[in-house]
């Protein structure tokens, strides 16, 4: 199982992601310069967080047009996992691999903090092993994370189990106060119909070790473990399909 972590100019979570995959999960993860990316030989691709091309114009737009995205698109079509974290999620929506758009936060400024999230679906490669309704904790750090789409399209996402994570309060309710950026329906992450293309604003790689978490949680690790299972075509060990 080889995982490519793509490195675009301006990415800045690529080494953090590699750290988690290699050091905590012992995976064969490789940092790949975007110009050198060729999908052959990789079983999954991760588009890491950061500010590719400075987020100039809009977050993720310029990277979405780089040649590397052709390979990413092909992997998505082949059903291989393609994971976009934060800036990576923005690239996936800008490239049209995931529906909707991530616009500037409603509060207009960058927000860095830990949030509670509810697992709304375990259809995606990242939530494969997580029980529906589970509450997990991860940090967010973004200025353009407000998920927007046409109402009809959002209903469709819900119906298909494509909404995978929402921002919730301590009790698990998707309240306006729990929504850090004004996303419609408090949406924090979505996937495509097959569940192999996944985008989320929170950073699982920053929430994978107790020492980094104000709550001592390691929830981020479960997301990557899910990815591993998904890649292996593995069975779920918990939760219903």
């Amino acid at each position, binding site marked *: 199982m080889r995982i490519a972590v793509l490195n675009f*100019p*301006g990415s*800045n*979570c690529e080494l*953090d992601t590699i*750290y*988690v995959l290699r050091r905590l999960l012992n995976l064969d993860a490789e940092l790949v*310069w975007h110009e050198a990316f060729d999908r052959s030989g990789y079983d999954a691709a991760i588009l890491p*967080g*950061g*500010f590719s*091309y*400075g*987020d*100039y114009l809009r977050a993720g737009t310029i990277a979405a047009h780089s040649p590397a995205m052709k390979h990413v698109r092909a992997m998505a079509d082949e059903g291989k996992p393609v994971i976009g974290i934060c800036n990576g999620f923005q690239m996936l929506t800008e490239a049209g691999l995931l529906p909707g758009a991530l616009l500037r936060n409603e*509060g*207009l*400024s*960058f*927000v*860095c*903090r830990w949030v509670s999230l509810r697992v709304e679906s375990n259809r995606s490669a990242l939530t494969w092993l997580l029980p529906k309704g589970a509450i997990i904790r991860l*940090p967010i*750090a973004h*200025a353009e994370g407000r998920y927007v789409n046409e109402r009809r399209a959002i209903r469709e996402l819900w119906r298909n189990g494509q909404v995978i994570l929402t921002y919730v309060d301590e009790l698990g309710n998707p309240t306006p106060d729990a929504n850090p950026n004004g996303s419609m329906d408090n949406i924090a992450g979505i996937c495509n119909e097959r569940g192999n293309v996944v985008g989320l604003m929170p*950073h699982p*790689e*920053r929430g994978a*070790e107790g*020492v*980094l978490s*104000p709550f001592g949680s390691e929830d981020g690790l479960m997301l990557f473990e899910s990815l591993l299972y998904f890649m292996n075509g593995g069975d779920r060990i918990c939760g219903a399909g």
Partner: protein
Amino acid sequence: MPEELDYVIGQLGREPNRIELGMLELMYSEHCSYKSSRPILKILPREGPRVLVGPGYDAGIVDIGNGYVVAFKIESHNHPSAIDPYNGAATGIGGIVRDILCTNCRPVALLDSLRFGPPRKGRTKWLLKYVVKGISDYGNRIGVPTVAGEVEFDESFETNCLVNVACVGIGRRDSIVLAKMESPGDYIVLMGSSTGRDGIHGVTFASKTITAESEEERPSVQIGDPFMKKMIIEATLEAVATGFVAGLKDLGGAGLTCALSEMSFKGGTGVEVELERVHLREEDMTPYEIMLSESQERMLFVVKPEGLERVLGVFRKWGLPHSVIGRVTDTGEILVKYRGEVVARLPSKLLAEAPVLHRRAKRPRDLAKALKVPKPREPKDLGRALVRLLSSPNIASKEPIYSQYDYEVGIRTIVKPGDGDAAVLRLLEEPRAIAVKADCNSRHCRLDPFNGHAGAVAESARNVVAVGAEPIAAVDCCNFGNPERPEVFWQFSEGIRGLSYMLEGLGIPCVGGNVSFYNEDERTGRAVNPTTVVVTLGLVEELDWVTTMAFKEHGDEIFAVGRTYAEMGGSEYYHWIHGISGGRPPRASPGRERSSMAIVKEAIRRGLIDAAHDCSKGGIAVALAIMAIKGGLGIDVDLGRIPRSGVGRLDELLFSESYARFVISARPGSARELRAIAERHGGAISRLGRVVDSSELFMRYGGRAIRCGLGELREAWNGSMRRYLGEL
């Protein structure tokens, strides 16, 4: 500078031409030459077993063992931020990051130390909003977390805000690179943004006071490009890894002139450059402009001839513009050619070593009066006073500010802003960590520069100790008015004496710093409070020692460490509750600091402590309240037990800002062991009471009691920054 010109002519044996004069003028500016401050700064202790590189280079470098080093440095960007807060603060971050980068350490953390006028003023809101946005947009984009800082509001900063930023880098001891040119024949490569007309004479601007015309000095405004900077960071580290980079320096104040002269002077060599090779943003630039430009995002590489292609290959991969502009020579001269003609020829030494000035110092006449103020009446409701104090902009939570910074990127930040007294960053390769915090109480410094500055050192060291670290080195950033005025120069020299006194007393070497003068309003002649921000670096040898400030569990016992005196001068309590800005501020004592720190350090290492917080603005009452708010737990304490001397009044006991104090909480039953530790270190400790499962602060004193609801306290502390500033 007629004497300086005479000196130059004497040395050269001729008149300098226009370009040479421009170069000399920049290098002799206060900003580049430290001509006023050098004679005073030399008293700072700079030696220590861990010090690898001390003051004089771009960043100080300390050995943290196992082959790792930490480089860190602080710098001011006050003047640019006062006229263009967004770009001024952003390029401040850009500059300090380059200072760390050019030692070949990876920048892993930023700190920001900010000072503004009263928060309700329109100018303050504007400055604060855009300074924070500038730091956020730039720091976040380059992928370096902003992990700690401080914000102070005081009338003296209304025109001249202070924006000080620090950067910390981690590297390997065997791969440090220095800003030196040592081998004639090496190539000189300029990499990064093209050179433009921006910022020409920026440093002379930074060495002037702000006037109405400042706003017109358009060319001084620089625009940062964080995307370019991020690529420069990666490309630089990759280029140095080839093994062919012999020297490295960033281009900051005085641009190419400064980099060439300082690098060749340090290495005892010379340079020959051809300016037509420099990649330019505007075609028609003159040699004068090219030598003096302060365009952002540029680095100067000294490359071994056999590795030139390898290094340039790295720059090409990252798509970074670059030009090979010349070579190192053995002449000791800066020889500048333009289209075949020599346009400037000066000894490196003449440029790099400006003659020093010995300024006059005089104690301000009105200071004695300011120290003597009548004591205010004690308010009847001290609980109310505490709630109000928590909402003071100087004490209120700065969460609305630091939440705009990505403090997590890099997955090193294990104590985050607001959670502990200092930020703690783990090393990724081994289970150890470093701690950093920036501090200064400028009101204390104004009333008593000596003790106030000593206090700044002590506070930042205490903060680092409170999270479980051993302080190992410090850097400082001096911000003062016009040094030509003897009163200001007195503040400066007293301040540096104070820093030295405490650094020496605590055995902490100063490995770098920065001096910013002329922070005053030319119209009113009002200078900023003398403010030297101290950043202390600490080392945490075991991750288990990492300690935060929230009370953890009810039943835990609360202790006060260190003695409280009736030291109310310059306190936030006097200022915010009584509108008094005078009085005698706390006296600094290295002995007491050493005892208190030793107690906390040992208690942490023995695993006795659950929470620790140092007492600073707002005194012991504010420390207790914040620890309770953070933990979501109440307390029940007897204030009568606080170790004290000569404190007659309850408000003084609650709000005195005496130094050398901590509040800690410990597992029940630790009292005996803690007392034994305290005794061994010759310090005071006393059990005040307990953490309780309630939602109130309950504080007794003789027959009196103070009760405050946690909700009310939390609302005052958490909510007020947003209220003062509107939406940030």
